[in-house]
Protein backbone atom coordinates (compact mmCIF):
# COMPACT_ATOMS: atom_id res chain seq x y z
CA UNK A 1 0.00 0.00 0.00
CA UNK A 2 1.36 3.33 -1.06
CA UNK A 3 0.96 6.43 1.10
CA UNK A 4 2.46 9.77 0.11
CA UNK A 5 3.94 11.53 3.08
CA UNK A 6 3.10 15.15 2.34
CA UNK A 7 -0.58 14.67 1.41
CA UNK A 8 -3.49 14.96 3.85
CA UNK A 9 -5.96 12.12 4.36
CA UNK A 10 -9.61 11.73 5.40
CA UNK A 11 -11.24 8.76 7.09
CA UNK A 12 -13.19 7.94 3.93
CA UNK A 13 -9.83 7.15 2.27
CA UNK A 14 -9.71 10.38 0.30
CA UNK A 15 -6.41 12.23 -0.13
CA UNK A 16 -6.13 16.01 -0.22
CA UNK A 17 -3.41 18.06 -1.82
CA UNK A 18 -3.57 21.72 -0.87
CA UNK A 19 -2.37 24.39 -3.30
CA UNK A 20 -3.15 27.80 -1.85
CA UNK A 21 -6.91 27.92 -1.47
CA UNK A 22 -7.46 24.96 -3.78
CA UNK A 23 -7.73 21.39 -2.56
CA UNK A 24 -7.21 18.53 -5.01
CA UNK A 25 -9.23 15.49 -3.93
CA UNK A 26 -8.64 11.88 -4.91
CA UNK A 27 -8.95 8.40 -3.44
CA UNK A 28 -6.03 6.56 -1.88
CA UNK A 29 -4.16 3.51 -3.06
CA UNK A 30 -5.72 1.56 -0.20
CA UNK A 31 -9.22 2.54 -1.40
CA UNK A 32 -8.61 1.69 -5.04
CA UNK A 33 -7.15 -1.67 -4.04
CA UNK A 34 -10.19 -2.49 -1.90
CA UNK A 35 -12.55 -1.58 -4.72
CA UNK A 36 -10.75 -3.47 -7.45
CA UNK A 37 -11.16 -2.59 -11.12
CA UNK A 38 -12.84 0.78 -11.21
CA UNK A 39 -15.41 1.03 -13.99
CA UNK A 40 -17.11 4.37 -13.42
CA UNK A 41 -16.64 7.64 -11.58
CA UNK A 42 -19.60 9.92 -11.01
CA UNK A 43 -18.20 13.44 -10.88
CA UNK A 44 -19.86 16.43 -9.21
CA UNK A 45 -21.01 19.47 -11.18
CA UNK A 46 -18.66 22.41 -11.19
CA UNK A 47 -20.13 25.11 -8.98
CA UNK A 48 -21.60 22.73 -6.41
CA UNK A 49 -21.21 23.90 -2.82
CA UNK A 50 -20.32 21.19 -0.34
CA UNK A 51 -19.84 20.99 3.40
CA UNK A 52 -17.14 18.71 4.72
CA UNK A 53 -18.42 15.09 4.74
CA UNK A 54 -21.04 15.75 2.03
CA UNK A 55 -21.03 13.25 -0.81
CA UNK A 56 -18.82 14.60 -3.57
CA UNK A 57 -19.09 11.77 -6.04
CA UNK A 58 -19.25 8.03 -6.41
CA UNK A 59 -16.71 5.49 -7.52
CA UNK A 60 -17.83 2.15 -8.84
CA UNK A 61 -16.27 -1.22 -9.49
CA UNK A 62 -18.17 -4.13 -11.00
CA UNK A 63 -19.61 -5.29 -7.68
CA UNK A 64 -19.31 -2.26 -5.40
CA UNK A 65 -20.17 1.40 -5.25
CA UNK A 66 -18.39 3.71 -2.87
CA UNK A 67 -19.19 7.33 -2.14
CA UNK A 68 -16.43 9.90 -2.08
CA UNK A 69 -16.90 12.42 0.73
CA UNK A 70 -15.70 16.00 0.62
CA UNK A 71 -12.82 16.18 3.13
CA UNK A 72 -13.20 19.99 3.35
CA UNK A 73 -15.99 22.52 2.75
CA UNK A 74 -16.08 24.70 -0.32
CA UNK A 75 -17.07 24.93 -3.97
CA UNK A 76 -16.22 22.50 -6.75
CA UNK A 77 -14.19 24.54 -9.23
CA UNK A 78 -12.79 21.78 -11.42
CA UNK A 79 -13.38 18.09 -12.11
CA UNK A 80 -11.13 15.55 -13.78
CA UNK A 81 -13.27 14.74 -16.82
CA UNK A 82 -10.61 12.35 -18.09
CA UNK A 83 -12.02 9.87 -15.57
CA UNK A 84 -15.33 9.75 -17.44
CA UNK A 85 -13.69 7.91 -20.30
CA UNK A 86 -10.85 6.26 -18.41
CA UNK A 87 -11.85 5.43 -14.83
CA UNK A 88 -9.00 2.90 -14.72
CA UNK A 89 -6.55 5.80 -14.29
CA UNK A 90 -7.42 5.66 -10.59
CA UNK A 91 -6.27 2.02 -10.43
CA UNK A 92 -3.11 2.87 -12.32
CA UNK A 93 -2.03 5.85 -10.23
CA UNK A 94 -4.50 6.95 -7.58
CA UNK A 95 -2.37 9.90 -6.42
CA UNK A 96 -2.11 11.28 -9.95
CA UNK A 97 -5.76 10.72 -10.91
CA UNK A 98 -7.43 13.44 -8.86
CA UNK A 99 -11.22 13.56 -8.93
CA UNK A 100 -12.13 17.18 -8.21
CA UNK A 101 -10.80 20.49 -6.95
CA UNK A 102 -12.54 22.26 -4.08
CA UNK A 103 -12.03 25.94 -3.50
CA UNK A 104 -11.96 25.86 0.26
CA UNK A 105 -14.38 27.93 2.31
CA UNK A 106 -12.30 27.51 5.45
CA UNK A 107 -8.65 26.54 5.02
CA UNK A 108 -8.34 25.68 8.70
CA UNK A 109 -10.36 22.49 8.15
CA UNK A 110 -7.24 20.92 6.67
CA UNK A 111 -5.86 20.67 10.15
CA UNK A 112 -8.57 18.12 11.01
CA UNK A 113 -7.19 15.68 8.44
CA UNK A 114 -4.57 12.98 8.97
CA UNK A 115 -1.01 13.18 7.77
CA UNK A 116 0.68 10.29 5.97
CA UNK A 117 1.89 8.48 9.07
CA UNK A 118 -1.44 8.81 10.83
CA UNK A 119 -3.26 7.52 7.77
CA UNK A 120 -0.99 4.52 7.46
CA UNK A 121 -1.75 3.63 11.05
CA UNK A 122 -5.48 4.18 10.41
CA UNK A 123 -5.42 1.72 7.51
CA UNK A 124 -3.64 -0.91 9.56
CA UNK A 125 -6.29 -0.63 12.25
CA UNK A 126 -9.06 -0.97 9.68
CA UNK A 127 -7.54 -4.03 8.04
Amino acid at each position, binding site marked *: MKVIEDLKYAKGHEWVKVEGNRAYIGITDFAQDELGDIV*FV*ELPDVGTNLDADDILGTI*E*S*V*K*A*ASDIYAPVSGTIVEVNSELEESPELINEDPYEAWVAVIEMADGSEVANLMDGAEYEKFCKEEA
Partner: protein
Amino acid sequence: MSNYIPNTEDVKKNMLAEIGYSSIEELFVDIPDRVRLERKLNIKGPMAEMDLMRYMKGLASSNKHGGEYTCFLGAGAYDHYIPSALGHIISRTEFYTSYTPYQPEISQGTLQAIFEYQTMICELTGMDTANASMYDGATAVAEAILMACQATRREKVLVAGSLNPEYKQVSYTYARPQGVSVTELGYKDGSVDLNTLEQSIDNETAAVVIQTPNFFGVIEDLESIAGIAHQNKALLIVSVDPISLALLKPPGELGADIVVGEGQALGNPLNFGGPYVGFFATTKKLMRRMPGRIVGETTDNVGNRGFVLTLQTREQHIRREKATSNICTNQALNALAVTVYLSLMGREGLGEVAEQSLQKAHYLHDKLIDTGLFTPVFKAPFFKEFALKTTISIEKLNSRLLEKGIIGGYPLEKAYPDLKGGWLLAVTEKRTRQEMDALVETIGGIANE
Protein backbone atom coordinates in the same frame (compact mmCIF):
# COMPACT_ATOMS: atom_id res chain seq x y z
CA MET B 1 -46.07 -39.83 -1.96
CA SER B 2 -45.84 -37.01 -4.43
CA ASN B 3 -44.64 -37.55 -7.98
CA TYR B 4 -42.61 -34.35 -7.60
CA ILE B 5 -40.58 -35.66 -4.64
CA PRO B 6 -38.06 -38.37 -5.57
CA ASN B 7 -36.87 -39.44 -2.12
CA THR B 8 -39.09 -42.19 -0.72
CA GLU B 9 -39.82 -42.59 2.99
CA ASP B 10 -37.20 -45.32 3.18
CA VAL B 11 -34.56 -43.19 1.54
CA LYS B 12 -35.38 -40.34 3.87
CA LYS B 13 -35.10 -42.60 6.89
CA ASN B 14 -31.64 -43.67 5.76
CA MET B 15 -30.56 -40.11 5.13
CA LEU B 16 -31.72 -39.08 8.58
CA ALA B 17 -29.89 -41.97 10.19
CA GLU B 18 -26.71 -41.16 8.32
CA ILE B 19 -26.62 -37.67 9.74
CA GLY B 20 -27.54 -38.85 13.22
CA TYR B 21 -31.23 -38.14 13.61
CA SER B 22 -34.05 -40.51 14.28
CA SER B 23 -36.93 -38.42 13.03
CA ILE B 24 -37.59 -35.44 10.80
CA GLU B 25 -39.22 -33.78 13.76
CA GLU B 26 -35.77 -33.33 15.33
CA LEU B 27 -34.85 -30.98 12.51
CA PHE B 28 -37.52 -28.52 13.59
CA VAL B 29 -36.42 -28.06 17.21
CA ASP B 30 -35.57 -24.40 16.63
CA ILE B 31 -39.22 -23.54 16.06
CA PRO B 32 -40.82 -22.64 19.38
CA ASP B 33 -43.75 -24.91 20.32
CA ARG B 34 -45.98 -21.90 20.74
CA VAL B 35 -45.85 -21.11 17.05
CA ARG B 36 -46.06 -24.67 15.73
CA LEU B 37 -49.15 -25.51 13.74
CA GLU B 38 -50.51 -28.50 15.62
CA ARG B 39 -53.09 -29.43 13.03
CA LYS B 40 -53.33 -30.19 9.34
CA LEU B 41 -53.76 -27.26 6.98
CA ASN B 42 -57.35 -26.94 5.92
CA ILE B 43 -57.01 -26.79 2.16
CA LYS B 44 -58.39 -28.68 -0.82
CA GLY B 45 -56.41 -31.46 -2.42
CA PRO B 46 -54.50 -33.57 -3.11
CA MET B 47 -55.77 -34.04 -6.64
CA ALA B 48 -54.49 -36.46 -9.23
CA GLU B 49 -53.53 -35.03 -12.60
CA MET B 50 -56.71 -36.12 -14.40
CA ASP B 51 -58.96 -34.75 -11.68
CA LEU B 52 -57.04 -31.51 -11.56
CA MET B 53 -57.27 -31.02 -15.31
CA ARG B 54 -60.98 -31.77 -15.32
CA TYR B 55 -61.53 -29.28 -12.51
CA MET B 56 -59.39 -26.55 -14.08
CA LYS B 57 -61.00 -27.03 -17.48
CA GLY B 58 -64.33 -26.51 -15.76
CA LEU B 59 -63.14 -23.20 -14.35
CA ALA B 60 -61.65 -22.16 -17.69
CA SER B 61 -64.88 -22.91 -19.49
CA SER B 62 -66.85 -20.74 -17.08
CA ASN B 63 -64.94 -17.80 -18.57
CA LYS B 64 -66.04 -16.31 -21.86
CA HIS B 65 -62.93 -16.00 -23.92
CA GLY B 66 -61.42 -14.84 -27.16
CA GLY B 67 -61.47 -18.31 -28.60
CA GLU B 68 -65.25 -18.10 -28.83
CA TYR B 69 -65.91 -14.39 -28.59
CA THR B 70 -64.78 -11.46 -30.71
CA CYS B 71 -62.92 -8.90 -28.65
CA PHE B 72 -63.17 -5.14 -29.22
CA LEU B 73 -61.85 -4.29 -25.76
CA GLY B 74 -58.52 -2.53 -25.47
CA ALA B 75 -57.80 0.19 -22.92
CA GLY B 76 -54.27 -1.04 -22.27
CA ALA B 77 -54.49 -4.75 -23.20
CA TYR B 78 -54.84 -5.84 -26.81
CA ASP B 79 -55.91 -8.91 -28.71
CA HIS B 80 -53.18 -9.07 -31.36
CA TYR B 81 -52.19 -12.18 -33.28
CA ILE B 82 -49.46 -14.40 -31.85
CA PRO B 83 -47.59 -16.56 -34.38
CA SER B 84 -47.65 -20.26 -33.58
CA ALA B 85 -43.86 -20.65 -33.48
CA LEU B 86 -43.64 -18.19 -30.58
CA GLY B 87 -45.41 -20.46 -28.11
CA HIS B 88 -43.14 -23.34 -29.04
CA ILE B 89 -39.99 -21.33 -28.44
CA ILE B 90 -40.97 -19.85 -25.10
CA SER B 91 -42.09 -23.32 -23.99
CA ARG B 92 -38.50 -24.55 -24.17
CA THR B 93 -37.90 -25.55 -20.57
CA GLU B 94 -34.29 -24.31 -20.78
CA PHE B 95 -35.83 -20.84 -20.98
CA TYR B 96 -38.69 -21.06 -18.54
CA THR B 97 -37.12 -23.20 -15.80
CA SER B 98 -34.00 -21.08 -15.46
CA TYR B 99 -33.63 -17.98 -13.32
CA THR B 100 -31.98 -14.56 -13.45
CA PRO B 101 -28.72 -15.10 -15.37
CA TYR B 102 -26.35 -14.65 -12.42
CA GLN B 103 -23.86 -17.14 -13.91
CA PRO B 104 -23.25 -15.89 -17.44
CA GLU B 105 -21.28 -18.94 -18.57
CA ILE B 106 -24.40 -21.09 -18.34
CA SER B 107 -27.00 -18.43 -19.11
CA GLN B 108 -26.02 -17.18 -22.55
CA GLY B 109 -29.42 -18.13 -23.96
CA THR B 110 -31.29 -15.80 -21.64
CA LEU B 111 -28.61 -13.11 -21.77
CA GLN B 112 -28.36 -12.99 -25.55
CA ALA B 113 -32.16 -12.90 -25.82
CA ILE B 114 -32.27 -9.91 -23.49
CA PHE B 115 -29.49 -8.19 -25.46
CA GLU B 116 -31.52 -8.68 -28.63
CA TYR B 117 -34.63 -7.45 -26.81
CA GLN B 118 -32.84 -4.29 -25.63
CA THR B 119 -31.73 -3.63 -29.20
CA MET B 120 -35.24 -4.06 -30.58
CA ILE B 121 -36.73 -1.72 -27.97
CA CYS B 122 -34.12 0.90 -28.92
CA GLU B 123 -34.99 0.46 -32.59
CA LEU B 124 -38.72 0.88 -31.97
CA THR B 125 -38.48 3.82 -29.57
CA GLY B 126 -35.54 5.62 -31.15
CA MET B 127 -33.74 5.71 -27.80
CA ASP B 128 -30.07 4.97 -27.05
CA THR B 129 -30.50 2.30 -24.44
CA ALA B 130 -33.10 0.02 -22.84
CA ASN B 131 -33.24 -2.21 -19.78
CA ALA B 132 -34.15 -5.90 -19.57
CA SER B 133 -37.83 -5.01 -18.82
CA MET B 134 -40.13 -4.04 -15.97
CA TYR B 135 -43.23 -5.70 -14.45
CA ASP B 136 -45.69 -3.94 -16.78
CA GLY B 137 -46.46 -0.65 -18.47
CA ALA B 138 -47.87 0.95 -15.33
CA THR B 139 -44.86 0.28 -13.11
CA ALA B 140 -42.56 1.33 -15.95
CA VAL B 141 -44.24 4.76 -15.94
CA ALA B 142 -44.04 4.97 -12.15
CA GLU B 143 -40.35 4.05 -12.09
CA ALA B 144 -39.67 6.53 -14.90
CA ILE B 145 -41.19 9.24 -12.73
CA LEU B 146 -38.93 8.36 -9.79
CA MET B 147 -35.92 8.25 -12.08
CA ALA B 148 -36.73 11.67 -13.56
CA CYS B 149 -37.03 13.14 -10.06
CA GLN B 150 -33.64 11.71 -9.07
CA ALA B 151 -32.01 12.93 -12.27
CA THR B 152 -33.38 16.48 -12.07
CA ARG B 153 -33.40 16.70 -8.27
CA ARG B 154 -36.94 18.06 -8.60
CA GLU B 155 -40.13 16.77 -7.02
CA LYS B 156 -43.04 17.88 -9.18
CA VAL B 157 -44.46 15.86 -12.02
CA LEU B 158 -47.22 16.66 -14.52
CA VAL B 159 -49.17 13.76 -15.99
CA ALA B 160 -51.46 13.96 -18.97
CA GLY B 161 -55.14 13.40 -18.26
CA SER B 162 -55.07 11.13 -21.29
CA LEU B 163 -52.57 8.76 -19.63
CA ASN B 164 -54.00 5.28 -18.90
CA PRO B 165 -55.93 5.70 -15.61
CA GLU B 166 -54.30 2.65 -14.01
CA TYR B 167 -50.85 3.99 -14.90
CA LYS B 168 -51.80 7.21 -13.13
CA GLN B 169 -52.92 5.30 -10.06
CA VAL B 170 -49.73 3.26 -9.89
CA SER B 171 -47.70 6.45 -10.36
CA TYR B 172 -49.43 8.08 -7.38
CA THR B 173 -48.73 5.01 -5.28
CA TYR B 174 -45.02 5.10 -6.11
CA ALA B 175 -44.61 8.89 -5.97
CA ARG B 176 -46.42 9.70 -2.73
CA PRO B 177 -43.93 8.23 -0.24
CA GLN B 178 -41.05 9.92 -2.08
CA GLY B 179 -42.64 13.31 -1.51
CA VAL B 180 -43.16 13.68 -5.25
CA SER B 181 -46.28 15.62 -6.16
CA VAL B 182 -48.11 14.37 -9.21
CA THR B 183 -50.54 16.78 -10.86
CA GLU B 184 -52.92 15.69 -13.54
CA LEU B 185 -53.38 17.93 -16.57
CA GLY B 186 -56.77 18.12 -18.24
CA TYR B 187 -57.20 17.29 -21.90
CA LYS B 188 -58.58 19.17 -24.86
CA ASP B 189 -59.95 17.41 -27.94
CA GLY B 190 -58.65 14.20 -26.44
CA SER B 191 -55.04 15.41 -26.30
CA VAL B 192 -52.71 17.22 -23.95
CA ASP B 193 -53.79 20.87 -23.77
CA LEU B 194 -50.60 22.72 -24.61
CA ASN B 195 -51.81 25.94 -23.00
CA THR B 196 -52.57 24.26 -19.69
CA LEU B 197 -49.23 22.51 -19.89
CA GLU B 198 -47.42 25.81 -20.39
CA GLN B 199 -49.26 27.36 -17.47
CA SER B 200 -48.66 24.40 -15.15
CA ILE B 201 -45.01 23.73 -15.84
CA ASP B 202 -42.27 25.62 -14.03
CA ASN B 203 -38.64 25.30 -13.10
CA GLU B 204 -39.49 22.83 -10.33
CA THR B 205 -41.12 20.36 -12.69
CA ALA B 206 -39.09 17.17 -12.96
CA ALA B 207 -41.05 15.59 -15.78
CA VAL B 208 -44.05 15.69 -18.04
CA VAL B 209 -45.65 12.28 -18.53
CA ILE B 210 -47.73 11.60 -21.59
CA GLN B 211 -49.02 8.62 -23.52
CA THR B 212 -49.26 8.27 -27.29
CA PRO B 213 -51.47 6.98 -28.78
CA ASN B 214 -53.13 7.99 -25.54
CA PHE B 215 -55.84 6.24 -23.54
CA PHE B 216 -58.45 7.56 -25.99
CA GLY B 217 -56.44 6.25 -28.93
CA VAL B 218 -55.44 9.75 -30.00
CA ILE B 219 -51.93 10.45 -31.29
CA GLU B 220 -50.31 13.25 -29.27
CA ASP B 221 -48.24 16.13 -30.64
CA LEU B 222 -44.99 14.95 -29.06
CA GLU B 223 -42.72 17.52 -30.56
CA SER B 224 -44.61 20.49 -29.11
CA ILE B 225 -44.88 18.85 -25.70
CA ALA B 226 -41.16 18.04 -25.70
CA GLY B 227 -40.41 21.69 -26.55
CA ILE B 228 -42.37 22.97 -23.57
CA ALA B 229 -40.88 20.38 -21.22
CA HIS B 230 -37.31 21.11 -22.27
CA GLN B 231 -37.71 24.88 -22.07
CA ASN B 232 -38.28 24.27 -18.39
CA LYS B 233 -35.46 21.73 -18.13
CA ALA B 234 -38.03 19.06 -17.31
CA LEU B 235 -37.76 15.58 -18.78
CA LEU B 236 -40.35 14.15 -21.14
CA ILE B 237 -41.60 10.66 -20.28
CA VAL B 238 -43.59 9.01 -23.04
CA SER B 239 -45.66 5.85 -22.66
CA VAL B 240 -46.25 4.33 -26.04
CA ASP B 241 -48.05 1.47 -27.81
CA PRO B 242 -45.15 -0.46 -29.35
CA ILE B 243 -47.22 -1.68 -32.31
CA SER B 244 -47.87 1.93 -33.32
CA LEU B 245 -44.12 2.53 -33.58
CA ALA B 246 -43.98 0.57 -36.82
CA LEU B 247 -45.75 3.59 -38.35
CA LEU B 248 -45.33 6.55 -36.02
CA LYS B 249 -42.27 8.67 -35.56
CA PRO B 250 -40.22 7.23 -32.68
CA PRO B 251 -40.42 9.34 -29.50
CA GLY B 252 -36.63 9.42 -29.40
CA GLU B 253 -36.62 11.49 -32.58
CA LEU B 254 -39.12 13.90 -31.10
CA GLY B 255 -37.29 14.70 -27.89
CA ALA B 256 -38.43 12.10 -25.38
CA ASP B 257 -36.03 11.48 -22.50
CA ILE B 258 -37.58 8.27 -21.20
CA VAL B 259 -39.80 6.01 -23.30
CA VAL B 260 -41.79 3.28 -21.59
CA GLY B 261 -44.81 1.17 -22.38
CA GLU B 262 -46.72 -2.04 -22.12
CA GLY B 263 -45.18 -4.79 -24.24
CA GLN B 264 -48.10 -7.21 -23.94
CA ALA B 265 -49.26 -6.53 -27.50
CA LEU B 266 -45.95 -7.92 -28.78
CA GLY B 267 -46.59 -11.64 -28.51
CA ASN B 268 -48.13 -11.99 -25.05
CA PRO B 269 -51.71 -13.23 -24.61
CA LEU B 270 -54.31 -11.17 -22.73
CA ASN B 271 -54.12 -13.61 -19.80
CA PHE B 272 -56.63 -11.70 -17.67
CA GLY B 273 -54.12 -8.90 -17.19
CA GLY B 274 -50.83 -10.68 -16.63
CA PRO B 275 -48.06 -11.57 -16.78
CA TYR B 276 -47.26 -8.63 -19.00
CA VAL B 277 -43.99 -6.81 -19.59
CA GLY B 278 -43.02 -3.16 -19.33
CA PHE B 279 -40.33 -1.79 -21.58
CA PHE B 280 -38.06 1.03 -20.48
CA ALA B 281 -35.68 3.04 -22.68
CA THR B 282 -33.73 6.22 -22.22
CA THR B 283 -30.88 8.39 -23.45
CA LYS B 284 -27.20 7.63 -23.05
CA LYS B 285 -26.99 10.51 -20.60
CA LEU B 286 -29.52 8.92 -18.23
CA MET B 287 -28.35 5.33 -18.74
CA ARG B 288 -26.86 4.89 -15.28
CA ARG B 289 -30.04 6.06 -13.60
CA MET B 290 -32.18 3.34 -15.13
CA PRO B 291 -33.89 0.88 -12.81
CA GLY B 292 -33.77 -2.86 -13.39
CA ARG B 293 -31.49 -5.40 -14.96
CA ILE B 294 -29.34 -4.48 -17.94
CA VAL B 295 -27.40 -6.82 -20.19
CA GLY B 296 -24.18 -5.75 -21.86
CA GLU B 297 -21.77 -7.20 -24.39
CA THR B 298 -18.30 -8.35 -23.43
CA THR B 299 -15.78 -11.07 -24.25
CA ASP B 300 -14.67 -14.26 -22.54
CA ASN B 301 -11.14 -15.31 -21.62
CA VAL B 302 -10.33 -16.22 -25.21
CA GLY B 303 -12.04 -13.29 -26.88
CA ASN B 304 -15.42 -14.75 -27.81
CA ARG B 305 -18.36 -12.38 -27.69
CA GLY B 306 -20.63 -13.01 -24.73
CA PHE B 307 -23.19 -11.24 -22.60
CA VAL B 308 -23.42 -10.41 -18.88
CA LEU B 309 -25.61 -8.49 -16.46
CA THR B 310 -23.93 -5.13 -16.18
CA LEU B 311 -24.04 -1.69 -14.53
CA GLN B 312 -25.09 -3.61 -11.42
CA THR B 313 -23.96 -0.97 -8.97
CA ARG B 314 -27.29 0.79 -9.58
CA GLU B 315 -29.08 -2.18 -8.09
CA GLN B 316 -30.46 -3.22 -4.72
CA HIS B 317 -28.10 -6.14 -4.11
CA ILE B 318 -25.17 -3.72 -4.09
CA ARG B 319 -26.59 -0.32 -3.16
CA ARG B 320 -29.31 -1.64 -0.84
CA GLU B 321 -31.35 1.38 0.35
CA LYS B 322 -29.50 3.68 -2.06
CA ALA B 323 -30.40 1.67 -5.18
CA THR B 324 -32.14 3.29 -8.14
CA SER B 325 -35.05 0.90 -7.56
CA ASN B 326 -35.91 -2.19 -5.51
CA ILE B 327 -36.67 -4.19 -8.64
CA CYS B 328 -34.75 -7.45 -8.58
CA THR B 329 -36.00 -9.40 -11.58
CA ASN B 330 -37.37 -8.51 -14.97
CA GLN B 331 -40.17 -10.25 -16.86
CA ALA B 332 -37.66 -12.34 -18.78
CA LEU B 333 -40.00 -14.86 -20.35
CA ASN B 334 -42.40 -12.15 -21.50
CA ALA B 335 -39.50 -10.13 -22.84
CA LEU B 336 -38.38 -13.28 -24.67
CA ALA B 337 -41.87 -13.49 -26.18
CA VAL B 338 -41.46 -9.88 -27.34
CA THR B 339 -38.08 -10.70 -28.88
CA VAL B 340 -39.34 -13.78 -30.68
CA TYR B 341 -42.46 -11.91 -31.82
CA LEU B 342 -40.43 -9.08 -33.30
CA SER B 343 -38.04 -11.58 -34.90
CA LEU B 344 -40.88 -13.48 -36.56
CA MET B 345 -42.85 -10.42 -37.62
CA GLY B 346 -39.75 -8.44 -38.47
CA ARG B 347 -39.64 -5.00 -39.99
CA GLU B 348 -42.32 -5.75 -42.60
CA GLY B 349 -44.63 -7.88 -40.49
CA LEU B 350 -44.86 -5.39 -37.65
CA GLY B 351 -45.63 -2.71 -40.23
CA GLU B 352 -48.40 -4.84 -41.65
CA VAL B 353 -49.88 -5.47 -38.19
CA ALA B 354 -49.84 -1.76 -37.46
CA GLU B 355 -51.27 -0.78 -40.80
CA GLN B 356 -54.06 -3.37 -40.73
CA SER B 357 -54.99 -2.30 -37.21
CA LEU B 358 -55.07 1.33 -38.33
CA GLN B 359 -57.12 0.61 -41.43
CA LYS B 360 -59.61 -1.64 -39.69
CA ALA B 361 -60.06 0.73 -36.76
CA HIS B 362 -60.96 3.50 -39.21
CA TYR B 363 -63.28 1.18 -41.11
CA LEU B 364 -65.23 0.32 -37.96
CA HIS B 365 -65.16 3.93 -36.78
CA ASP B 366 -66.67 5.17 -40.03
CA LYS B 367 -69.25 2.38 -40.17
CA LEU B 368 -70.44 3.16 -36.66
CA ILE B 369 -70.66 6.88 -37.40
CA ASP B 370 -72.66 6.01 -40.54
CA THR B 371 -75.33 4.34 -38.37
CA GLY B 372 -76.19 7.77 -37.06
CA LEU B 373 -76.16 6.41 -33.51
CA PHE B 374 -72.67 7.59 -32.65
CA THR B 375 -70.60 10.73 -32.78
CA PRO B 376 -66.85 10.90 -32.21
CA VAL B 377 -65.94 12.10 -28.71
CA PHE B 378 -62.82 13.78 -30.08
CA LYS B 379 -61.84 14.99 -33.51
CA ALA B 380 -58.22 13.99 -33.62
CA PRO B 381 -56.06 11.48 -35.46
CA PHE B 382 -56.15 8.03 -33.86
CA PHE B 383 -54.34 4.74 -34.34
CA LYS B 384 -56.19 1.51 -33.47
CA GLU B 385 -58.53 2.70 -30.76
CA PHE B 386 -61.23 5.38 -30.76
CA ALA B 387 -63.91 6.87 -28.52
CA LEU B 388 -67.51 7.30 -29.61
CA LYS B 389 -70.45 8.89 -27.85
CA THR B 390 -73.97 7.50 -27.91
CA THR B 391 -77.28 7.98 -26.20
CA ILE B 392 -77.79 4.23 -25.88
CA SER B 393 -76.64 2.93 -22.51
CA ILE B 394 -73.17 1.43 -22.83
CA GLU B 395 -74.09 -1.32 -20.41
CA LYS B 396 -76.99 -2.31 -22.61
CA LEU B 397 -74.85 -2.16 -25.72
CA ASN B 398 -72.20 -4.40 -24.25
CA SER B 399 -74.60 -6.94 -22.80
CA ARG B 400 -76.50 -7.29 -26.08
CA LEU B 401 -73.24 -7.66 -27.97
CA LEU B 402 -72.18 -10.34 -25.53
CA GLU B 403 -75.30 -12.32 -26.40
CA LYS B 404 -74.11 -12.26 -29.99
CA GLY B 405 -70.63 -13.43 -29.07
CA ILE B 406 -69.01 -10.00 -29.10
CA ILE B 407 -67.04 -8.45 -26.26
CA GLY B 408 -67.78 -4.74 -26.63
CA GLY B 409 -65.83 -1.62 -25.81
CA TYR B 410 -64.69 0.03 -22.58
CA PRO B 411 -67.15 2.41 -20.89
CA LEU B 412 -65.10 5.59 -20.51
CA GLU B 413 -67.29 6.73 -17.64
CA LYS B 414 -65.53 4.16 -15.44
CA ALA B 415 -62.40 6.30 -15.36
CA TYR B 416 -63.70 9.63 -16.70
CA PRO B 417 -67.02 10.61 -15.09
CA ASP B 418 -67.25 13.56 -17.50
CA LEU B 419 -67.29 11.18 -20.47
CA LYS B 420 -70.61 9.52 -19.70
CA GLY B 421 -71.85 7.75 -22.79
CA GLY B 422 -68.30 7.41 -24.09
CA TRP B 423 -67.33 4.03 -25.55
CA LEU B 424 -63.74 3.08 -26.32
CA LEU B 425 -63.25 0.44 -29.01
CA ALA B 426 -60.02 -1.23 -30.04
CA VAL B 427 -59.51 -2.93 -33.40
CA THR B 428 -56.48 -5.07 -34.10
CA GLU B 429 -55.36 -6.85 -37.26
CA LYS B 430 -57.14 -9.94 -35.92
CA ARG B 431 -60.60 -8.50 -36.49
CA THR B 432 -62.21 -9.40 -39.81
CA ARG B 433 -64.61 -7.39 -41.90
CA GLN B 434 -67.26 -9.97 -41.04
CA GLU B 435 -66.73 -9.51 -37.31
CA MET B 436 -66.86 -5.74 -37.59
CA ASP B 437 -69.98 -5.84 -39.76
CA ALA B 438 -71.60 -8.18 -37.24
CA LEU B 439 -70.92 -5.65 -34.49
CA VAL B 440 -72.45 -2.84 -36.52
CA GLU B 441 -75.45 -4.96 -37.44
CA THR B 442 -76.13 -6.00 -33.85
CA ILE B 443 -76.04 -2.39 -32.77
CA GLY B 444 -78.47 -1.47 -35.51
CA GLY B 445 -80.79 -4.10 -34.09
CA ILE B 446 -80.55 -2.66 -30.58
CA ALA B 447 -81.36 0.82 -31.86
CA ASN B 448 -84.41 -0.42 -33.75
CA GLU B 449 -85.99 -2.01 -30.66
